[in-house]
């Protein structure tokens, strides 16, 4: 850890404040992860990555920079990693998932901004996260009003490029997104000094697709009646996917899936037969936000799927790997990303269809629709989600929460009551 301190100091971090964060993390990891029974052995890798979250990967990113490479920080599943990696740069997810960073964000943002934005801005301005220090440039996007204005504030402290995400899905919108991706390519090329060739892009489309395929395989395992992995463990894997080296991540996740498939064949489950299967839908759960999974899985149910950015929205569907020219490749990338269904789009019926499809695929008994406080888009769309699920006869519990633990008992009561209702 001594080496980490030197690295953090060189990154210009606020060490005193950051030590407070480091002091609480091991306890949280112990309570949430290590207390679980019958975990797959393959979780060792992810446990290690989380335990040294501000050490291992940051030092790799710095080594990359020392070799002349650039690091781009991203905040959204619509930002195409393959373009960044094709310029020999590294993309790393930056979304903040801890209350620790929220007060820092509240110094400059209105209180009624969602905690994800507040935590992200706070992590940068308070200098308490190495990833936020390391990234040479941030890639923002126009998914919501809170983020749009946050980029303006952040851009006074760090270079920010904002991608203009369309809010409808007409043919011209997909075309507009392709243009934004082409513009990103230009920005990335200029910033890194490296050219994005069709060969490079093809190679990195495969790289990112392979990461998606590994996650899809993990989620496929979760569809089984035999539950080989807890939702809490699967969630942290989804979260790590945002910042880990993509090739290594795919390799380790495939290795874990070998074990999970063996468990399924042998009938090894982390929960007893008949345990109610829950899917979470809604806003993302950025690392280290494990609150709801922990509550659900210590209230007698198991989470088998997340229809979230930290979940199916991140990995479903692949970019067509057969295209050969840059223009075709970029169109293929735009097509894949515009197939993600976020509540920032209108209309957004396809997301409701996704939820119902996933509920069937993962054989869920009930759905918890989660809204991060002050996310107006998902909150409003919850109206349609709940109505559609009701029509399908799938029980649903709507929950609004933030990163604090102050509502943990109320949430536990609601979730327990929901599980009791499903068990009745």
């Amino acid at each position, binding site marked *: 850890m001594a080496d980490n301190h030197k690295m953090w100091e060189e990154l210009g971090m606020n060490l005193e404040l950051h030590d407070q964060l480091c002091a609480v993390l091991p306890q949280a990891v112990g309570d949430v992860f290590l207390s679980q029974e019958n975990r797959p052995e393959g979780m060792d890798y992810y446990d290690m990555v989380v335990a040294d979250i501000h050490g291992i990967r940051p030092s790799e990113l710095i080594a990359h920079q020392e070799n002349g490479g650039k690091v781009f920080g991203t905040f959204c599943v619509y930002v195409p990693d393959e373009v960044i990696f094709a310029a020999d740069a590294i993309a790393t997810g930056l979304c903040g998932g801890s209350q620790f960073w929220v007060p820092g964000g509240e110094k400059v943002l209105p209180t009624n901004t969602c905690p994800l934005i507040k935590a992200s801005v706070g992590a940068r301005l308070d200098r308490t996260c190495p990833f936020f220090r390391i990234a040479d440039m941030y890639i923002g996007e126009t998914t919501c009003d809170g983020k749009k204005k946050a980029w303006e504030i952040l851009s006074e402290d760090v270079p920010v490029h904002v991608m203009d995400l369309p809010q409808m899905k007409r043919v011209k919108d997909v075309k507009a997104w392709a243009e934004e991706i082409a513009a990103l390519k230009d920005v990335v090329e200029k910033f890194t000094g490296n050219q994005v060739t069709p060969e490079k892009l093809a190679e990195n489309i495969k790289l990112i697709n392979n990461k998606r395929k590994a996650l899809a395989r993990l989620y496929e395992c979760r569809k089984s009646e035999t539950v080989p992995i807890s939702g809490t463990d699967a969630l942290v894997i989804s979260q790590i996917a945002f910042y880990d080296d993509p090739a290594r991540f795919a390799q380790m996740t495939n290795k874990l899936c070998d074990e999970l498939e063996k468990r399924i064949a042998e009938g090894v489950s982390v929960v007893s037969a008949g345990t109610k299967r829950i899917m979470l839908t809604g806003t993302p759960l950025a690392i280290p936000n494990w609150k709801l999974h922990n509550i659900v899985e210590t209230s007698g149910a198991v989470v088998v799927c997340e229809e979230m950015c930290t979940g199916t929205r991140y990995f479903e569907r692949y970019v067509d790997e057969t295209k050969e020219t840059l223009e075709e490749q970029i169109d293929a990338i735009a097509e894949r990303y515009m197939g993600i269904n976020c509540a920032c789009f209108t209309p957004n019926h396809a997301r409701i269809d996704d939820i119902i499809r996933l509920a069937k695929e993962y054989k869920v008994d009930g759905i918890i629709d989660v809204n991060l406080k002050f996310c107006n888009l998902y909150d409003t769309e919850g109206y349609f989600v709940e109505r559609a699920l009701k029509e399908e006869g799938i*029980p649903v519990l709507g929950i*609004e929460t933030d990163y604090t633990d*102050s*509502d943990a*008992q*109320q949430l536990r*009561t*609601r979730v*327990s*009551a929901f599980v*009791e*209702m499903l068990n*009745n």
Partner: protein
Amino acid sequence: MYYVGIDIGSTASKTAVRGGKELMFVLPTGWSSKETTMTIREKLLEEGIDVSSDEVKVVATGYGRVAVDFADYVITEITCHARGGRELAGDDCTIIDVGGQDTKVILVAAGSVQDFLMNDKCSAGTGKFLEIMANRLGVTLQELFDMADIGQVLAISSLCTVFAESEVINYIGEGKKREDIAAGVVDSVAAKVAQLAGRKNLSDKIILTGGISSSVYFTDILSRKLGKTVQPTENGRYAGAIGAALLAEEKSRRR
């Protein structure tokens, strides 16, 4: 056999006994759920009911349910209220529970919880709101309702208890009549409860439970705001405890 339901609420702790003896009593929860639990244990012993005996089955519920270390089962207040409400209103009903720290709307169909809703962390539309406002006006809860009954509603528009309290202070400063302020307070709670309940398709049979469940004045206002009849209940504050006692019986029979 004795079947005991203990509902440790944020404000009041309710106990209901069925089986060998029928009994109900309420205690203030005070600052320690643990201590209240001990007092309940002693009170039951005075009645010849020893919770450590095999002849006694205990279900604990309410926000302090985990503090009841002698409970055989721990069940959430939603499920217990639904069971108790069913006993008071039949197999198909809606239960609106205005509790000390939260308000619940529970839809019961064919005897089971079909759906439920709870207010957010905030205390608007709960008993806490009434308690704070009664304190501010220097009266008891009962007096608050009595005064409200003869007052003209003064609008209290803030949804937040803290801000609403400022509104009340302003009214006091302006020399408004206490009765009118009281009417405004009760009206605002009913409006918030109706707003919450209005999110669900309520059945025709709706009952009010919780500490103010016997107030005809409150159910009348609530009925008007909902456009549906809400019935007051005599033992509504015991709904959770009665439900817990019934579940204690059913659970031990099932074994």
